Structure formats: structure tokens, C-alpha cells
């Protein structure tokens, strides 16, 4: 019990005094996972809309692959991205391995299937005749796409939350391609793991509280947007 109490007390002291290292790690986490989610969103909406609206050979297989990707183990993603970005690997020239950039790539790969899968489901749930109706109302292709995305905004924001949640909470891939370098690639999850390994429970608890708060705040904002109804 004492371990927990001491840990909690120390954690709130760290949070209260605004330990520079801790906040730096939190901000880096937010930036890396935010960028990864943004990339996953652009990719996921584009691919998801194509899969939802187009009929082509292999479409069903593609949807199965996306759904499989929704459960992609982060360590496998980490391994694949590490091989690609390794100095002697195919994309080694980019010099991304052990940089935040490599972590963004890995987390985007993890989040993209989630956003894609949710997008396919969200757009697929719209009435089938909605698109012809929008075209008939004089919408161009882009106007049509913008209107259906707005119409499916609730489930699409759920897709965004799921993508961000997966990105910020994964550890395996970030560890492998980022290396957990202090001041460079250390993020909340890798920092917690390292602290626990060292038996330093207080900073681990402090970092975990920050991680949970961050996820809570992001979801609070997104849910606020999601539930905000138009004039009734």
C-alpha cells in the first residue's frame, strides 16, 4: 500500500511543480500521435470513401484486409517500419530511424486501418440513394463528397477518436523505430515502461495520469464536436 501512496504523492508533486522533462514528453507524445492521426485521417477517408462508394474487382478482399488491419499488432508494424527505415534498409536514405518522424510513420500505419474501416462503415450506412440525390441537386463530385462526410460526421469522429487512441497508447512500434531516446524520441508510453523497468513508480504514475488526461481531453473535445447538433 505504501508503494502506491508514495507513488501517488510523488506523482502529484511532479505534476504540481511542472517537471520540464515530463511536460516535454507529454507534448512530444501529443505532436507525434496527433500528426500520425492526421495522416491516418487523410489516408483513411480517401481509401474508405473509395471502398464505400466504388465497385471494383477485389473490393471485398480490400475491405477484409482493412478490417484485418484494424487489429494489426503494433510490434509487427514496428518491425516492418524498422526494416524499411533501417540505415541499410530500402528507405534508409531518409535517415528517419530513431527520430520522431519514424514514430509518426509507425503510428500512422497503426491508426490508418482503424480510420479506414470506420469510414467504410460510416459511409456505407448512409442511404444508398443519397449520393444520386446530391448529384441530382447539382453537386459536383467534390461537393457531394463534402456533404456525405458532413452527414457521416458522428461516426467519422468516432473513427478519429479510435485512431488517436490507438496511436497514443501503443508502445511496441514507438520503441522499435524511435528507440526511446531521452529528449528526442521518448514519449509517454515508452517513458512509463522505462520507469517501471527501473522501479521508479512515482514518475510512471505521473506519466500515466498525464497520458490518461490527454486521451480524456482529446475525446472530450471530439465528443463535444460530435454531439453538437445543428439548430433544432
Amino acid at each position, binding site marked *: 500500500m505504501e508503494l502506491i501512496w508514495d507513488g501517488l504523492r510523488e506523482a502529484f508533486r511532479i505534476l504540481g511543480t511542472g517537471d520540464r522533462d515530463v511536460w516535454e514528453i507529454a507534448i512530444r507524445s501529443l505532436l507525434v500521435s496527433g500528426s500520425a492521426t492526421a495522416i491516418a485521417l487523410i489516408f483513411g477517408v480517401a481509401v474508405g470513401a473509395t471502398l464505400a462508394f466504388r465497385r471494383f474487382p477485389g473490393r471485398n478482399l480490400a475491405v477484409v484486409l482493412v478490417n484485418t488491419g484494424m487489429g494489426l499488432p503494433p510490434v509487427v508494424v514496428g518491425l516492418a517500419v524498422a526494416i524499411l527505415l533501417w540505415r541499410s534498409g530500402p528507405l534508409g536514405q531518409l535517415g528517419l530511424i530513431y527520430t520522431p518522424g519514424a514514430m509518426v510513420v509507425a503510428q500512422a500505419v497503426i491508426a490508418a486501418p482503424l480510420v479506414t474501416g470506420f469510414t467504410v462503415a460510416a459511409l456505407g450506412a448512409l*442511404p444508398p*440513394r*443519397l449520393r*444520386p*440525390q446530391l*448529384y*441530382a*441537386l*447539382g*453537386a*459536383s463530385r467534390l*461537393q457531394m463528397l463534402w*456533404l456525405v462526410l*458532413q*452527414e457521416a460526421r458522428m461516426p467519422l469522429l468516432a473513427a478519429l477518436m479510435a485512431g488517436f487512441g490507438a496511436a497514443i497508447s501503443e508502445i511496441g512500434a514507438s520503441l522499435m523505430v524511435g528507440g526511446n531516446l531521452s529528449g528526442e524520441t521518448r514519449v509517454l508510453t515508452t517513458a512509463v515502461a522505462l520507469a517501471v523497468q527501473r522501479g521508479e513508480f512515482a514518475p510512471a504514475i505521473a506519466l500515466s495520469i498525464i497520458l490518461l488526461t490527454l486521451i480524456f481531453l482529446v475525446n472530450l473535445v471530439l465528443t463535444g464536436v460530435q454531439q453538437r*447538433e*445543428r*439548430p*433544432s
Partner: protein
Amino acid sequence: MTKIALRDIVVRRGGVEILRVPWLDLREGEVLAVLGPNGAGKSTLLQVLALLERPAEGEVRFDGEAVAGRELALRRRLAVVFQESLLLNRSVEANVGLGLSLRGVPRRERADRVRHWLARFGIDGLAKRSARSLSGGEAQRASLARAFALEPEVLLLDEPFSALDQPTRESLLEELATVLQETSVTTVFVSHDRNEAARLADRVVVLAEGQLRQVGLTADVFTAPADETVAAYVGVETVIPARVLEVSDGLVTLQVGEAKVEATAESFVATEALLCLRPEDIVLALSDVAGSARNQLRGVVRGIRSAGAEVRVEVDCGFSLVASITKRSLEELGLEVGSPLVASFKATAVHLIPRGGERRTLASDADDVH
């Protein structure tokens, strides 16, 4: 003036032909009804006219010019109302103004037109409400207002009332008829309900199995169907094979079952025919009546069934025919199954579809079907 012309149109889905229209003109200012059973290709025809479906073969012309490559610009001169209201999750007024904002119509003009058409369809009180909160009838009113607010050159309606309950459907049909008359907008009205078509349409197209069966003035198609399918579809309930006995002076005598029937027809050359009788053209009486009806057939009631305010009486008079009378005359005549009676109808009420021999060209659609 022809507004939209279809030439040699073939539409395929997954390699299967689902619609073939060799020739169809939508004339400026007319209301054209497209009738036919489910799966006949009615909606596909509407999608071709709405420039939403590009046919595999053939040409669509708008105001005499091919549409290829100009679909978006031309679609902005049309409006379509589907069976489902398909409103977006926004306020009613935002929905009604949607087509206008897609066209970049300035806000003030948009608001004016939206207000006008909301009021025209009696839903101005719902302007600020969320479209999700509307009843089926209200939503379809909003959908109609959304279409009319565009002041389209051509209005395309795809079974707009078939998802509504009967009273709503009837009142909305009447409102639409009035608005169509006022605006005299060129209109295509897809329906599987012949009464709706009869109420609204100047001309009728009948489709079955993806083929154009008949095109003509509404009255002509309803009284002189081109074939059995069309006959069944436009409400001719008695369609029986008959043999031609004699043709003279525009009068054809036919053997129908055990009875003889006279019909008017000019230049009838076939030896076999299908005899078509609309139930409302048959008069039932208890004994022979002095009247102008050439055909008076003695028979027996075989069945009686209720059809709305009316009653359908099936009579065996050497062949089986179906007559329509009011509930009141049923009581007055005291008819029941087995009652003897006399069924009479005029020679002009009989429509003949030639079978075998040479096919007669139908006067009503000679200028439409080539």
C-alpha cells in the same frame, strides 16, 4: 419542342441489359408518366433522363444537343425527387436551400425562394426544425419544396408518394397536381400506381421487363392498350381471347367463349384477338334494358369482392368478365353469388388487341414509337 430526347438507349448492369429505349421524346411542358411493374426499368429510365446513369449505348439530347461531357451543368437545370426524402441531418430550411447553395445562389435570393416553397407546400412552420424530426409526409413535402425551389426546367419524380400512407398520399398528390399546373414545368412522373398516372399525366409510357411497351396520350393508352401486359397494367380487368367472326362497316363480331360480342374497330385484319373491357364500362341489370349498348349478355354472378368504395362483380356470361359497381347499386340489385343478371356494354367500350395475322398499328403511338 423536345426537352430531352432518348435515342437507341441501352442500359446494362453487370453485363445484363436492363433497359432498352429505341426512341423517346420528353416534350416541353408536358407531364409524362412512366408506368410499369417493379423491376420494369422505370427508375433506370428516370436515372438516364436525370443524367445520373450513363447508358451503355445510345444518345441523350437536352434541348436538341448531346449531353455527353456537360452532365453537371445540365443537371443543374433539373430536379429529382425520389421515393425516400433523402434530407440531410440539418434544419428543414437548410435542406430546402441545399440545391440553391450548391449552385451558388446568393443568400438573400435563396432565403426568399426557400420561404416561398416551404409555404407553398404548407411546411413554413417547420423551417427551423431538424429534418430528422419530420414525419414521412412532412419530409416528402420538404423534398418537393427542395426540388421546386430550384425552378427546374425539368422535374423528375421517382415514385415520390409510394412510401406514404393513403390519406397523406392523396392530399400530396392533389397539391402536386395544382403546383404542376401552375408552374407548367416539364415533368416525368414514375409510378406503379395507374391512378396517380391518370391524375397527373398528359402522356404515358408503359415499361415492362426493360422494354418500352407503349407510349401515347394517357386516354389512348388507358382505353387502347397495345398488348396484354399494358392492358393488365392500366386497369383493364377483363382480357379474354376471342375469334373474329365477321368484319363489316367498322363493326367486328367476335366469338368469345359461348357468347357473341360486337366491337367497333376500323380496318381489323387479324383473325384472333384479345378482347379488353374496363370494369367501369360494364353495366349490370336484373333484366334486359332498352339502351344504346349493343352487347347485352345474360349471365350469372360468380363472385363479389370489395375494392375500396366500389365492388367488383365477376360475371359468367359465356365467358368471364369483371364489372365495377357501387356498394349501393349492389344492394339495390340484391346481387349475390348465383344471381342471374344481364351485363351490357357498348361496342365502343370494347378494345381489341389483334393476335395472329397482321399486327395493327396503334394510332395513338404511331408518332412516338419507331
